[in-house]
């Protein structure tokens, strides 16, 4: 602050500096907390397994899981090199995520804007949401073939509903004052949608994207139940069939790691898109 060349203040300590230090300490706390949680969970699991409190046959143990991951990493998996499995699943996931969320947003916005349409189609969409994705995945495998299309479709279906319901509600939550103002200012339906409704519903949509990427991964894995030759899901099923519990957990760890990377990207996107908000810095203060 003083670098800005402003005059020194008469009294009081450097609050800005104090807050910077606080922020740094917070950061350390967070990392410490995360490590602590990991140590407690993994340590407890490992010890429990070693003390046979936890049945290793069903639950494996962290050291075995790490060893499996290491083996996959260095020697490749049975289905081929590890990166290939990750890549295949990522393609399916990203495809499903994009397709599902684009359709979810479009349907959500259109139905949110149009009362008649939402009244007419609402029950069908709500009913469809109850159809088990495993069954849907099988139908897709039959009708779309066994390549990536069916997996993308399965992932997209999982994503669609979550995004749809949020986009729909987000649209209906838009401040009526703002809509009125935009209308008066001359916004036509298209403008109203792109400039008022969507920005305003954005936090709803982005919130659903946080869940969605994980769901897209789940969908891709479910899709790999049917006719896959590679992918993380296939790796998990193979391990499961072979009673290789460590492999099952290793696969899940891979999925979790993938999701976290994607999460970081979505959060970055969110921060960019919602710049017009008061910064979260003071959030802790109130």
């Amino acid at each position, binding site marked *: 602050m003083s670098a800005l060349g402003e005059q020194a203040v008469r009294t009081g300590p450097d609050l800005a500096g104090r807050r910077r230090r606080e922020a740094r300490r917070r950061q350390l706390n967070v990392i410490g907390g995360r490590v602590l949680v990991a140590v407690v969970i993994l340590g407890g699991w490992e010890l429990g397994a070693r003390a046979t409190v936890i049945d290793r046959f069903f639950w494996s143990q962290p050291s075995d899981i790490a060893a499996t991951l290491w083996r996959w990493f260095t020697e490749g998996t049975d289905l081929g090199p590890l990166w290939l499995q990750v890549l295949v699943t990522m393609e399916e996931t990203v495809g499903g995520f994009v397709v599902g969320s684009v359709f979810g947003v479009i349907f959500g916005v259109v139905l949110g804007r149009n009362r008649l349409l939402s009244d007419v189609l609402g029950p069908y969409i709500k009913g469809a949401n109850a159809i088990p994705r495993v069954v849907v995945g099988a139908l897709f495998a039959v009708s779309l073939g066994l390549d990536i299309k069916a997996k993308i479709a399965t992932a997209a279906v999982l994503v669609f509903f979550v995004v749809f319901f949020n986009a729909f509600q987000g649209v209906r939550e838009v*401040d009526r*004052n*703002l809509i*009125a*103002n*935009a*209308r*008066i*200012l*001359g*916004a*036509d339906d298209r*403008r109203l949608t792109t*400039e*008022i409704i969507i*920005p*305003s519903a*954005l936090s709803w949509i982005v919130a659903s994207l946080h869940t969605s990427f994980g769901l897209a991964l789940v969908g891709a894995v479910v899709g790999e139940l049917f006719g896959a030759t590679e992918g993380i899901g296939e790796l998990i099923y193979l391990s499961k069939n072979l009673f290789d519990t460590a492999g099952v957990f290793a696969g899940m760890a891979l999925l979790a790691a993938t999701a976290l990377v994607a999460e970081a990207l979505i959060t970055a996107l969110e921060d960019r898109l*919602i*710049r*017009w*908000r*008061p910064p979260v810095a003071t959030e802790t203060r109130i």
Partner: protein
Amino acid sequence: MTPAIELRGVTKRFLAPSGGIYTALRDLNFEVEPGEFCAVVGPTGCGKSTTLALISGLEPPSEGEVEVFGQSVGGIAEGIGYVFQSDAVFPWKTVLENVAAGPRYRGVSNRDARERARDWITRVGLAGFEDRYPYQLSGGMRKRVALAQSLINGPRILLMDEPFSALDVQTRTLMENELLNLWSATSASVVFVTHDLEEAISLSDRVFVITAGPGTVKSTYKVDLPRPRNVAEIRFQPRFVEIYEEIWKDLRDEVLVSYERQKRGAA
């Protein structure tokens, strides 16, 4: 000549929370000539904002007829500018984008719209704040953004709901004069809601006093002060004081009725 705005026998009812019906406006008759500047005064809660909502087409009347330039209003009417009583600037747009929104919506190219917006931002005294988001502005500044946002469209009918109430006296006087200049250049019809009788008189051709309770027009007063006016000076003219006294008596009665009634508890 068809009036610019005409309300005939308009009644507006709302559903009260108890399930009953609350009548906000009853049998309201109201005419604004083209190019006329009208002010609306009345006790709080008498239905001033509701009247503007009816004219703009944002709310439908429960009974009666609302016409703008002879056309029955059945939705958002064309060519209207509306400065809302409550904050309605777009939080996700900067000041510049907020002000440029109107022209852009009406098909002006992005560049031109921004240019005109810059001009208007300067007129309302916000130059230098173009890139701010609304949360970074003070209350008065947000109000001025809203003002520029409406005026930039050059509306034929301008509805203003206490637009200057958050401004300090000086800024307010400046803005009032600015508004009069603009208005005389465009000959728009203005309906100006205010709780400040001085402001009402110094700006307008006609003042409507609305009754308490279910609002209806109690009386109208012609303001026969010469134009162009300077609002800072006009208040000291003897004719102004005369008109003020006259309307004030009328208004005060209404306000007292309203206040007493509310104190007693009539919903």
